[in-house]
């Protein structure tokens, strides 16, 4: 159970910006950000003296709302705002109810979703979409984004500034309707949230806390989709199922000493049963309609792992079959590598190595540390210590953080210990 106050500012900042942008129009995003920042500043100043009010979220919303009304009154002749409010600005007080409406509890959820759909504009790269979602909806500063994605602050800044400029050509937030455009954007939102979650789950960032945070935000945003009539499609449920089933295994991926622990060695008693059950429920609910998405397949694979009592007792045949399907939907050497590892689990290491050597486009795995690591692992199981050690050394050079480095170091030492 997480503390409701934890990350309150971060969470509310996204909601406030979304509501303000609806009122001000997308071209005034910067103004919305200033007003949001100001509302947080006021909360900080007042609360540090007097403590938090009983309903801090309502306090922040009211403050932002009042600020918005002030801005509209002050700037109504100098700026153009959102089309839906511009007409109302002509008479002095009629815009207040519109502002109130934008900040209503239901409206604000819609505003957040509309903002999410606006951020996945097809004119932007996927990296820019994800950065923008983190920045606007999750309240991550440019520095925090560069820290999470291990890029320079200047690069993150540039990416976000350019993305905002592109979106500023729209005056309105994206409209949620059953249109073709909506469906296309919904898949783009799925991909962005999937990317965000994966960055948290498999990412190179050495700080677990940062990665957990990215996963948590991805889950929170996916839940917003689930709670919306039009957005709660089977792929949405499958994506959320996938996130739950992965997140359930997160605590056991790093052992007490802070070292990476692979699936067969993980302490399965640490897996979060509640999340596994939630994932399973969602996966069942997602099994409607005629389209099977990549998220369905990935969630099914994750469920095979999560529901197996031990690594040996896992249904590897089914997992290989699921990987075959996944490769048809989304061909990728990383998926093919995972498939080969699953083959090794039930047909033995030699078969696994054969499958790895048959991967199409495997030169694209050259910089992926888990590629030589898998080769090393299977060679070691075949008793070829020299070859194994060679692969682990390559993996060590590719390791992206100290946790991975320690792990590879440990495997090299294991090669030396193993009897011939």
């Amino acid at each position: 159970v997480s503390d409701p106050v934890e990350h309150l500012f971060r969470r509310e900042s996204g909601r406030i910006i979304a509501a303000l942008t609806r009122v001000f129009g997308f071209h005034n995003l910067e103004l919305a950000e200033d007003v949001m920042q100001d509302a947080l500043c006021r909360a900080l100043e007042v609360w540090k003296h007097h403590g938090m009010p009983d309903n801090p979220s309502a306090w922040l919303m009211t403050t932002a709302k009042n600020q918005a009304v002030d801005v509209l009154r002050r700037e109504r002749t100098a700026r153009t705002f959102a089309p839906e409010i511009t007409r109302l600005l002509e008479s002095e007080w009629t815009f207040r109810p519109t502002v109130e409406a934008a900040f209503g509890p239901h409206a604000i959820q819609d505003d957040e979703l509309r903002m999410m759909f606006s951020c996945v504009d097809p004119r932007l790269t996927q990296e820019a979409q994800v950065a923008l979602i983190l920045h606007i909806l999750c309240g991550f500063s440019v520095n925090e984004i560069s820290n999470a994605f291990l890029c320079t602050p200047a690069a993150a800044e540039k990416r976000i500034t350019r993305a905002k400029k592109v979106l500023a050509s729209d005056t309105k937030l994206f409209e949620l309707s059953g249109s073709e455009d909506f469906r296309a954007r919904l898949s783009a939102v799925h991909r962005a949230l999937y990317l965000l979650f994966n960055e948290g789950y498999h990412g190179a960032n050495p700080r677990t806390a940062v990665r957990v945070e990215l996963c948590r935000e991805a889950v929170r945003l996916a839940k917003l989709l689930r709670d919306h009539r039009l957005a709660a499609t089977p792929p949405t449920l499958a994506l959320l199922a996938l996130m739950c089933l992965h997140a359930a295994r997160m605590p056991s991926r790093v052992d007490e000493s802070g070292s990476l622990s692979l699936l067969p060695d993980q302490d399965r008693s640490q897996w979060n049963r509640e999340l596994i059950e939630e994932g399973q429920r969602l996966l069942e609910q997602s099994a409607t309609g005629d389209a099977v998405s990549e998220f369905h397949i990935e969630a099914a694979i994750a469920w095979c792992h999560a529901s197996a009592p031990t690594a040996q007792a896992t249904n590897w045949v089914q997992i290989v079959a699921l990987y075959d399907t996944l490769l048809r939907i989304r061909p990728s050497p990383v998926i093919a590598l995972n498939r080969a590892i699953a083959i090794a689990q039930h047909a033995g290491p030699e078969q696994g190595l054969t499958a790895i050597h048959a991967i199409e486009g495997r030169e694209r795995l050259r910089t992926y540390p888990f590629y030589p690591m898998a080769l090393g692992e299977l060679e070691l199981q075949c008793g070829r210590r020299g070859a194994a050690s060679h692969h682990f050394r390559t993996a060590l050079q590719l390791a992206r953080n100290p946790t991975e480095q320690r792990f590879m170091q440990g495997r090299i030492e294991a090669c030396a210990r193993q009897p011939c």
Partner: protein
Amino acid sequence: MSAGAPLKRLEGVSQPSRECVMSEFLYVYRNGNGVEKASAEEMQKIMQKWMTWMQGLAEKGHLKDRGHPLEPEGKLVSGTGKNVTDGPYAEKDLVGGYSLIEAKDLAQAAELSKGCPIFDRGGAVEVRPIMKM
């Protein structure tokens, strides 16, 4: 019971702070670098630090009045001509708020202020004894 008994009972007992003669002090918070550039998460952390610090002062009986934050804008009325000029003022001298503190002397009041999170962002606390009547 002799008349001296109540006094005798106090001998050798260290006096609890409320029995000391406490003086009042004004903490004037000078903001230094504002929080405008801070992220939402950083702002929340700053706020929580302040709340913890204030709570600590209150629990030890040092917080006479939590005081108030001040709006950044204002007017300055000065000179015999009563000239009125608008704020804002120089950023680092800007008074962001005040609290009323009880301490046994100026040295203790200054010592207590050292826990204030304002120093993390280059701010300052001005500690001023309130003149006794």
